[in-house]
């Protein structure tokens, strides 16, 4: 049994191997970019916009509202990054029900790449907001004794992001493969349906956690530490 689509080689020229992860990442990218280009090529501000334009507007508005709720800031600057993360993960998780499609998020390489994007984006947004010195000082909060723990926290939450998404998607695939060999017809379908729900929730959680990390680094409450838990708990208190 394969536990990652990395091992499934589609084509091989010389030393270059094109594995399933890369191929299906390209498929998702082409799908997202293609649909967006096709729809935005003929935007209209008529009374009744086209069906697809309506769909995209709902999507973008929904994402803006969620980002505003989570970060308590204007969503404009965060929308491209967070929205792309959400759409990519959501589309690749949902397409997992298409026969033959291997979700690229079921490979640790893809999820690690996404988590590293978040790791790099957090200081970038923080520096834009507070300047280099101001951002580096957040590592010394509350005292300089916490410096190593802040750095470890930054790294460990990146690993947690990557492994969480990978584990969820991979567990769905492994479970489906096991069930097909035990109870062939009905039950695997139900688990696939459950997998659709889990996939969307995981995409949402990845995006929200990325947003919480970025908001903790760049927001007004940067002093409250950059752990997600404290950001979430301060959200509860509000």
């Amino acid at each position, binding site marked *: *049994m394969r*536990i990652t689509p990395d091992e499934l080689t589609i084509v091989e020229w010389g030393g270059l191997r094109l594995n399933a992860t890369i191929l299906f990442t390209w498929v998702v990218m082409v799908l997202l970019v293609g649909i967006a280009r096709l729809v935005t090529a003929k935007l209209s501000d008529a009374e009744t916009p086209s069906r697809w334009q309506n769909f995209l507007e709902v999507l973008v508005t929904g994402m803006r509202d969620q980002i505003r709720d989570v970060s308590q800031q204007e969503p404009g600057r965060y929308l491209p990054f967070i929205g792309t993360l959400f759409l990519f993960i959501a589309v690749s998780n949902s397409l997992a029900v298409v026969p033959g499609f291997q979700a690229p998020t079921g490979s640790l390489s893809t999820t690690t790449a996404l988590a590293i994007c978040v790791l790099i984006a957090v200081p970038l947004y923080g520096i834009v907001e507070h300047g280099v010195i101001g951002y580096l000082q957040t590592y010394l909060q509350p005292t300089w004794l916490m410096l190593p723990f802040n750095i470890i926290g930054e790294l460990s939450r990146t690993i947690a992001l990557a492994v*969480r998404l990978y*584990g969820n998607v991979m567990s769905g695939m492994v479970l489906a493969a096991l069930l097909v060999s035990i109870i062939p017809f009905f039950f695997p379908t139900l688990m696939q349906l459950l997998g659709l729900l889990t996939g969307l929730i995981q995409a949402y959680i990845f995006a929200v956690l990325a947003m919480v990390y970025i908001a903790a680094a760049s927001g007004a409450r940067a002093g409250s530490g950059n752990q997600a838990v404290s950001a*979430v708990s301060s959200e509860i208190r*509000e």
Partner: protein
Amino acid sequence: MDNVGLIGAVSILTAGLTLAIGSLGPALGEARAAAQALAAIAQQPDEANTITRTLFVSLAMIESTAIYCFVLSMILIFTNPIWNRVIAMAPT
């Protein structure tokens, strides 16, 4: 029992134990979180949106410990590094 068999048996046993113990704690924790969130929604239905969002994020963070255990047990069963090394070293 030779080395290879021993490592195989211990790996499988450990994988099962990892998953069994590792899913116990998060299950209890998630149940508690969900129960508290439901109670909170029942008390303050207006805040349902915020509570649900926070619940999802907290559930994901609680669940991740179980996911680590799952990934670890999958590694132990399917791509066990120690097993591979012993197989490579074993005299054929």
